[in-house]
């Protein structure tokens, strides 16, 4: 099968899986490019950031229109994520590839552990209180600890630019657990913000020549189609099985990235 077609299919897989699980897809795109196609990590991260922008802006259009994304909160927190992403994008140019691979492995383990905990506690697929509230009207809520959250958003933005992910795995818990924002709105708002932080991070990669158009073009097409596909079938798939499959996949990728970081495996 030609490489171009494989890239489109990989983007389709990452985009649909990401849409089904509320992720930007970067946690899958970076390992696919690095471990699957042998792409150097900085190029994989830069290319992934472009894909993350595509999925974020596409989903944000729907969430903003539907009133699920809190634009005020998103822009306030973006002041933290954008600074973090600018710093992360610049710092990434000086970090050895093995350190970035190690950090990515840690992020994958954290993501897998977070999703597995939700699975064990039986939260996957269940609507939270806010969703139930949303069914009877727009839920009113109060945001708390805004300055602390902007600080946390700085970390989220930095991780996004360093590792080529959206940063939703940090931003959603930050909004939901620290700021007490309902889960449904935290997910939609995180999606809205991700485009800004990914763009801020992408600029450094763009001017370093670390965004490869030969990879980015087919991946963006696949991811955009996959995101639309995933959003379309999300109500018809049992999320428990989906999350379980994702946890196994992410756990496996974390081990492979850790081996890459330790120099046991080449990219």
């Amino acid at each position, binding site marked *: 099968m030609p490489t171009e077609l494989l890239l489109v299919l990989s983007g389709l897989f990452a985009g649909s899986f990401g849409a089904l699980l509320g992720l930007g897809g970067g946690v899958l795109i970076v390992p696919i490019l690095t471990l699957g196609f042998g792409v150097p990590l900085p190029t994989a991260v830069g290319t992934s950031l472009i894909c993350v922008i595509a999925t974020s802006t596409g989903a944000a259009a729907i969430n903003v229109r539907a009133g699920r994304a*809190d634009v005020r909160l998103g822009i306030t927190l973006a002041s933290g994520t954008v600074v973090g992403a600018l710093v992360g994008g610049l710092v990434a140019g000086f970090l050895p590839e093995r350190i970035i691979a190690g950090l990515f492995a840690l992020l994958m383990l954290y993501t897998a552990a977070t999703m597995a905990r939700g699975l064990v506690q039986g939260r996957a697929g269940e609507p939270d209180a806010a969703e139930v509230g949303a069914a009877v009207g727009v839920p009113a809520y109060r945001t708390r600890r805004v300055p602390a959250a902007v600080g946390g958003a700085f970390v989220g933005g930095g991780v996004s630019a360093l590792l080529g992910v959206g940063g939703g795995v940090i931003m959603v818990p930050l909004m939901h657990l620290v700021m007490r924002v309902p889960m449904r709105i935290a997910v939609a708002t995180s999606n809205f913000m991700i485009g800004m932080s990914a763009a801020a991070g992408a600029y450094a990669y763009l001017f370093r020549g670390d965004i490869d158009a030969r990879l980015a073009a087919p991946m963006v097409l696949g991811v955009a189609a996959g995101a639309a596909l995933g959003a379309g079938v999300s109500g018809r798939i049992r999320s428990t099985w989906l999350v379980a499959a994702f946890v196994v996949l992410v756990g496996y990728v974390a081990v492979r990235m850790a081996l890459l970081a330790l120099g046991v495996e080449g990219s």
Partner: protein
Amino acid sequence: MSERTPATGGLLRNGMARTLRIGTLVAVVLVGAGWAWSLVTSDAVLDERSVLELVGSGGPGTLIGAGLIGLTFLPIVVLGLAIVGFRATGERRLAAISAGVLALLVIGFATAAILGTLGG
């Protein structure tokens, strides 16, 4: 700490949603058209060129480069709309935050351009 709902003013919400939707669509169509064109003509224009070099290359590379760079500029356009929308609804603090974030993105772009140029 303020009570809030996610719903925002019509100009802000509809304007942003429309911009995001149309902007994403245009960028993806540009990338798709350029990529299909390069495959049909077996054009080697994509070989060893950065995205920035592609924009000025002419042909399919220009379409792909414009689409990919257009995606990265979409948040800047959205923030511009946010400034207008928040000013229209009298929310000066949020208009100022939006302007600050927009300025950060522009500074980030300029810094990356300068460092990229210096780095060769």
